[in-house]
C-alpha cells in the first residue's frame, strides 16, 4: 500500500487489521492485511513469504533424484502427488515407460493421499467454524491411512515413495488387506461427516451464498482443484491430461455450479467418495511386474523443456523443467495450486463480513508451504 493510499484511507472510516501471521485459521504463517469498513471487508491483501525457502533455486543445484525430496515439503498434505509430478516429468524426459504395477501403485497412493488431505481439511474446517468434534473425527480416520503410509514407505508425512523410474519399495504383503479395511471403515464413517456438518443448519447458514466465485473469475484467476470445480469449471487434470492409471478407472469429476463456500465444501466431500471408488477398482487388480525400472545413478536429461501437471488435493500442480543437458536442471518452476487459489481470495471476500473470511479461507484449503515454496 502506498503512502497516498494510506493517507486517503486514514481520512475515512476504514481501518486495518492484520490477520496473522500467527493466526489459527490461516493454517500456517500467512499474513492478511484487511481493510475494513465496520465489519465489512473492502480489501484483503495477502502478504506472503514467511516460509519462502527458494525451493526452485535449490533445485538448480540438485540432481533429479534429489528434487523429488524437496517437493513433498511444498504441499505436505499432497506430498505423494508432488513427488509423482517430478517423477513423471523426469520419466517423460528420459522416455522411460514405467510398469503397469508402478502406475497402479502410484494411483492408489495418490488417492489415499487425497483422502487423507481432505479428511484433515474437513477436520480443521469444522474447527475454524467452531466445531471441535470434527477435528477429532477427521484425525481418527486419517490415522488409518497414515499407518498404511508408514508401513509402505516408513514415513507418516513427507513420504518420499516415488523415485524416477518407479517406487522406492514394493508394497508390503498386507497392503491390500489394510487398504480394503480402511475403505470398509470409511464408507461407514463418511456419512457421519454429513450428519455432523453438512446437514447442520448453523453450518449451512455460514457457508451457503458466502464467498461466491464465478466461473469466469475461476478461470481467469486459475483457481483449480475442488475450489474451481465448485464454480462450474471442469478442470480435473486426471480427466483432461490423464496420467498413471487414471485412464483405466471409471470415476466422476465432481462439478458444482453455485461457486459458494458450501459448493467448495461439498465438492471435497463428494471427491472423497470418488477417491474410494478409484481405489476399490484398482486394489484387487495390482498387476505383477517390477516396481522400479533401472535408471542411471546420475540422471541427465537431454536439452529440452518439459511441463508435467498432476491433480493434487488442491488443484493443478505443474512442474516445468528446463534442462541444458547437465545433471542439474537449468531452471525448475513449480506452478503450485495454492498460489493461484489465494490470488482469488480478495474477489471472494470483498463485500463480505470479517467472520466469513475464515470460512472462505477454509474452503479454498490453503497450505502455506505450497504457496511460499
Amino acid at each position, binding site marked *: 500500500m502506498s503512502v497516498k493510499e494510506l493517507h486517503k484511507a486514514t481520512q475515512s472510516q476504514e481501518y486495518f487489521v492484520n490477520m496473522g501471521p500467527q493466526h489459527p485459521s490461516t493454517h500456517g504463517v500467512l499474513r492478511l492485511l484487511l481493510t475494513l469498513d465496520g465489519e465489512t471487508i473492502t480489501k484483503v491483501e495477502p502478504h*506472503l*513469504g514467511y516460509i*519462502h525457502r*527458494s525451493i*526452485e*533455486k*535449490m533445485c538448480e*543445484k540438485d540432481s533429479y533424484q534429489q528434487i523429488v525430496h524437496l517437493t513433498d515439503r511444498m504441499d505436505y498434505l499432497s506430498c505423494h502427488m508432488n513427488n509423482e509430478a517430478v517423477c513423471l516429468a523426469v520419466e517423460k524426459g528420459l522416455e522411460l515407460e514405467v510398469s503397469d504395477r508402478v502406475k497402479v501403485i502410484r494411483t492408489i497412493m495418490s488417492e489415499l493421499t487425497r483422502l487423507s488431505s481432505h479428511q484433515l481439511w474437513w477436520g480443521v474446517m469444522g474447527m475454524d467454524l467452531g466445531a471441535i468434534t470434527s477435528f477429532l473425527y477427521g484425525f481418527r480416520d486419517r490415522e488409518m491411512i497414515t499407518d498404511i503410509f508408514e508401513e509402505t514407505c516408513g514415513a507418516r508425512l513427507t513420504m518420499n515413495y516415488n523415485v524416477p523410474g518407479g517406487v522406492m519399495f514394493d508394497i508390503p504383503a498386507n497392503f491390500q488387506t489394510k487398504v480394503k479395511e480402511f475403505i470398509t471403515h470409511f464408507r461407514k464413517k463418511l456419512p457421519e461427516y454429513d450428519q455432523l456438518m453438512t446437514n447442520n443448519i448453523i453450518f449451512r447458514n455460514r457457508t451457503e451464498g458466502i464467498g461466491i466465485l464465478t466461473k469466469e*473469475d475461476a*478461470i*481467469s*484467476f*486459475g483457481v483449480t482443484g475442488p475450489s474451481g470445480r465448485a464454480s462450474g*469449471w*471442469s*478442470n480435473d487434470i486426471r480427466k*483432461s*491430461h490423464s496420467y498413471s492409471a487414471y485412464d483405466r478407472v471409471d470415476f466422476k469429476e465432481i462439478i458444482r455450479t453455485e461457486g459458494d463456500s458450501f459448493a467448495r465444501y461439498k465438492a471435497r466431500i463428494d471427491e472423497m467418495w470418488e477417491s474410494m471408488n478409484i481405489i476399490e477398482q484398482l486394489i484387487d487388480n495390482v498387476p505383477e511386474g517390477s516396481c522400479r525400472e533401472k535408471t542411471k545413478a546420475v540422471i541427465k536429461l*537431454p*536439452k*529440452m*523443456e*518439459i*511441463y508435467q*501437471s498432476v491433480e493434487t488435493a488442491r488443484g*493443478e500442480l*505443474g512442474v*516445468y523443467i*528446463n534442462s541444458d543437458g547437465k545433471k542439474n536442471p*537449468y*531452471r525448475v*518452476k513449480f*506452478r503450485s495450486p495454492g*498460489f*493461484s487459489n*489465494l*490470488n*482469488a481470495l480478495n*474477489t471472494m471476500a470483498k463485500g463480505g463480513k470479517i467472520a466469513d473470511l475464515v470460512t472462505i479461507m477454509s474452503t479454498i484449503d490453503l497450505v502455506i508451504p505450497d504457496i*511460499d515454496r
Partner: protein
Amino acid sequence: MNREELQDKINSFGIEVSFAESEVPTQFLTPEVSSENVHALISELKNNSDTNFDYLFCQTGIDFPDHIEVLYHLRNTQNNSEIVVKAKIEDRENPSIASVSDLYKTADFHEREIFDLFGVKFNNHPDLRRIFLDDDWEGFPLRKDYVDEVNIVEL
C-alpha cells in the same frame, strides 16, 4: 486445431513471431516474440474465437547469460489445447515487459513473483511489489549471477 493450423493462425495475426526449430519436437507449440509484441500476441490468442486461450496456467521467467525469457503457458479450457509463448527481453540491466494482468487475473501474483525473483518490471501492473522477499532485499535470487553470502545451498 492441430499444431500446423495453429501455427498458420498465429502467423496470420500480423505480429512478428518466430517458431524455434529443434531436432527434438517441443512439447507445446512455442512461438517466440519480442517483449514489445507479447501483449498484442497474447491478447489476440485469448480473444480470437479460433484460439481462445482463456487460461494462463503457468507464467515464469528464465535467466540466460545474455537475455531473460518470460514464459506464458496458455490453455484453452474448452478443448484443452495448449501453447507456450516465449518473450525475450534483451536488456538484463533494466528488464521490462508489458503486464498481462489485464487479460488474466492470475498474472497479478505470478508477475509479482517474477519481479521479485528476476527483477523483471511489468509495465501497467496494478500493484508491482516484491511478493516473497522483504521490500529492501538486494538483488534477484533466481538470476544466475546472484551472489548469496550465506549460500545455504552450497553449505
